[in-house]
């Protein structure tokens, strides 16, 4: 099925790469462009903490995809500014137009700092991509006392890593940070019960009042609303993990239906013919539960990437949920798809 199509994949993560492989296999003649705003190739985000702790080398992070096809082009470090789905043009922020015939949006998610945090941004570090991991690796090794804000998936991985590295940490947990899930008080209690014996101090919902440089580290004042008490902490590093939000700014106000993510039907098609969305940037209609679901997790992304590609090529596959549906957060099982009511045994080795 040779075609004159130009398939564009927006995103170089698990969903984008699964889509790429599927397209490559089923339509080898077509021209494919993958656009990623990161400047490094496909790598495993879930393993960033292992890389920081030194358990794996930099090289082991990267998943070497075969791009040695003449008609496949990887564009790294290039940001999508907007999409015109009517004219089928992608506008890149360096002011270049790309014409596509079919598009798969697999742009993943990005950190969503709470409006409160913005004033403290200069003091807060995070681990959202390879570059940040690489930049902060050394200072994490050097530091002893950590203050960790938030409590999304990466945040808990980070805490685990700190425990394994023998570091001391205080976690200020914001139950809303765990997008797209909100931790209830029972979950918070169970997480606390699990982490505190490992030497992590947990505070819930305390607000940052001030952060100041002090002795090479930081002096942080937090306010506990319930007790109306201000507490002072000293720490070497402050890390914030304030949850993720779909990385879809470029699609806003361009006619796409967007709730939390880009709304797609069970075939992963957006409201535009020839435009598909998959992975954590998409909100997928579940015909059984009759709800648009956001999903996270590597396996979900890969599965959806493949299905989006197949449907784009003319198949009509309904998204199936990946078999692994739970993350294990300190003994608390958290579903990888929001509002999903199906009951299944959680996979204890959940990776994301």
């Amino acid at each position, binding site marked *: 099925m040779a075609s004159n199509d130009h398939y564009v994949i927006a995103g170089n993560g698990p969903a984008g790469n699964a889509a790429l492989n599927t397209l490559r296999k089923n339509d080898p003649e077509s021209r494919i462009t993958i656009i990623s705003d990161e400047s490094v190739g496909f790598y495993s985000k879930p393993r960033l903490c292992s890389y920081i702790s030194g358990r794996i080398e930099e090289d082991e992070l990267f998943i070497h995809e075969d791009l040695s096809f003449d008609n496949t082009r990887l564009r790294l470090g290039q940001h999508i*500014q907007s999409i015109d789905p009517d004219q089928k043009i992608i506008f890149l922020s360096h002011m270049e137009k790309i014409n596509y015939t079919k598009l798969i949006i697999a742009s993943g998610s990005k950190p969503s700092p709470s409006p409160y945090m913005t004033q403290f941004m200069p003091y807060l570090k995070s681990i959202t991509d390879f570059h940040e991991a690489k930049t902060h690796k050394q200072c994490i090794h050097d530091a002893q006392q950590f203050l960790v804000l938030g409590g999304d998936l990466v945040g808990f991985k980070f805490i685990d890593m700190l425990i394994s590295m023998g570091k001391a940490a205080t976690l200020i947990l914001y139950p809303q940070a765990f997008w797209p899930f909100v931790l209830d008080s029972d979950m918070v209690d169970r997480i606390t019960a699990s982490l505190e014996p490992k030497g992590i101090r947990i505070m819930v919902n305390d607000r940052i009042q001030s952060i100041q440089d002090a002795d090479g580290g930081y002096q942080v004042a937090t306010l506990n609303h319930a007790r109306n008490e201000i507490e002072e902490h000293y720490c070497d590093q402050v890390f914030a993990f304030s949850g993720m939000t779909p990385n879809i700014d470029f699609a806003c106000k361009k006619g796409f*239906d*967007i*709730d939390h993510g880009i709304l797609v039907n069970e075939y992963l098609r957006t*409201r535009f013919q020839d435009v598909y969305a998959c992975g954590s940037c998409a909100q997928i209609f579940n015909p059984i*539960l*009759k709800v648009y679901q956001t999903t996270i997790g590597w396996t979900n992304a890969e599965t959806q990437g493949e299905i989006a590609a197949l449907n784009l090529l003319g198949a009509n596959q309904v998204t199936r949920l990946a078999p692994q549906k739970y993350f294990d957060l300190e003994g608390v099982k958290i579903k990888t798809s929001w509002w999903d009511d199906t009951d299944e045994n959680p996979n204890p080795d959940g990776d994301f």
Partner: protein
Amino acid sequence: MKSSTQFKQDHSSASSPYFSDDVRDFSQVEKSIPCQEACPAKTNVPGYIRDIYEEKYGRAYEINRACNILPGVLGRICSRPCEEACRHGNDNNGDSVAICYLKRSCADLKSPMHRIIEGLYTPTGKKVAVIGSGPAGLAVAHELAVMGHKVTIYESEEKPGGMLMYGIPEFRLPRNLLLSEIENILRLGIDLHTSTMIGKDINLEDLHDIYDAIVAAIGCMKPRTLEVAGEGLENVYNGLDFMKMVNAGQTPYVGEKTVVIGAGFTAVDCARSAVRLGASQVDIHMRKTVELMRIDAHEKVEAQYEHIGLHGLMQPNRIIGENGRVTGIEFLRTRLEQTDRSPYRVSVPIENSEFVIPADTIIAALGQTPDKEVIFNRAQQSLTMEGYFSAGDFVSGSSDVIHAIADGKRCAQEVDHYLTGIVRKKKMVRIEPCSTTDRDRSFDFISRTAMDTIGLSERKAQLTAEVESGFNTEQAYEESKRCYLCNLRYEIDPQRCIYCSACIDVMPKDCIKMVKGIVFEDSGAYQSYETSQYWNQATAISIDNSKCIRCGKCLEVCPMDCISVHKTELVEVDLASESFE
């Protein structure tokens, strides 16, 4: 449609201001000044921003007031269609100019010695009753009073202002400011009768006997209801009633979990008021998506800052209660579908997708409809009767304040013509040569001035504390620099241009074009350029005023001095007076 290379020549060498009613000039002004065109009241935005730059706040206030009698109010709560249209907000031009904040700043910063200017006509001896003292009613009354008619306003509520007084929370619109701007209108000899409901306290027929004309500007005060089971339970409010209570100084009950239904300003106002009343968790739920909310981005950020959750794609199915009180609400999930009419995307419920969330307060802020039955028992008949007019939301359905004011003015002119048979004014384009643009290229790189706001604790401490602090003179000055001054018209004289391309070399945007010809609209107005990439096809080099950001660079480099700049202004001139100036 015809194609031509003929360029308009007539006045380009004039050195003093002149007036034009050429369709091409009207069309050029419309296309080139997007903010003014987007404004229902056709406010001269570049004109007043330039005055702010020159620190003539009073003059800026009067420019506003000429089109919109409540500048201080609109400077706070306008829906800002101008900012959507502002060329500074186009792709790769940055953010739109903070037009609304600047409007507020001319009201805030004008001297306490400032004098209102009114161009009053001779009294006509005619009497007009205006029913309703909302924005439309006030606009009608003011305009008619200026024209010399004796106006009386009837207001059913205790205080004037309509939705401004009762719908919009005080933390967005301070009441002393509102009342002072209303007072400025009433000073033209307008009588105001409050707590007087037409159809109840006075019959419409009686009014008809007293007045030469009657204007209904009663707005949309009839709230839409949820039309679901359980609506009568305790602690279920409709948005407007809720806001009325809050604005009347009452403290309606809000529980721990407050659910607001709606997607417009009222929904956000209710939610933000609930936060101030002590609700610990407030969420807004809407049928369509959060992205499609009918509020501006700024309002969304403020809501989120106040910890209000926004949730899309669900519609209420029934309200659940125990012992007569609300305990929860059942939603149906929705999906979006396409229609061929505005608003194009509509929500459709998904069958069997019910789910329940707990709630102890529910506010249904679904908007309002005109309450025609209240006054006009024989509504259909009345509206077509001679001497009856209507204005504002009452005519157009629930819209926004600036639309209402613009429609009030329109209605007043209709009434005036009915009463006097005179056409007083004519629209013209005033064109004035400018020797300099007086605008620095560096202004284009100033980023939008953020509005200072008070902190969350202060907001909660006092229900009525105004959240936005307004610009100080420095902020207003900086922001005023950002306006591109789209009212300046740049033209290249094709007779003098030597096609050196010096202007094209320095153009900051894709704004100067080699033109093969011009496409005209049927009206004779310019429609678009036929551009060419090839020199041998170009018959002229032309500045695209819809792309131009008025940086003035082309003017500087032109060796032939063939680029002219004219300041254009849409004006209404008196037909009767001897001269236009």
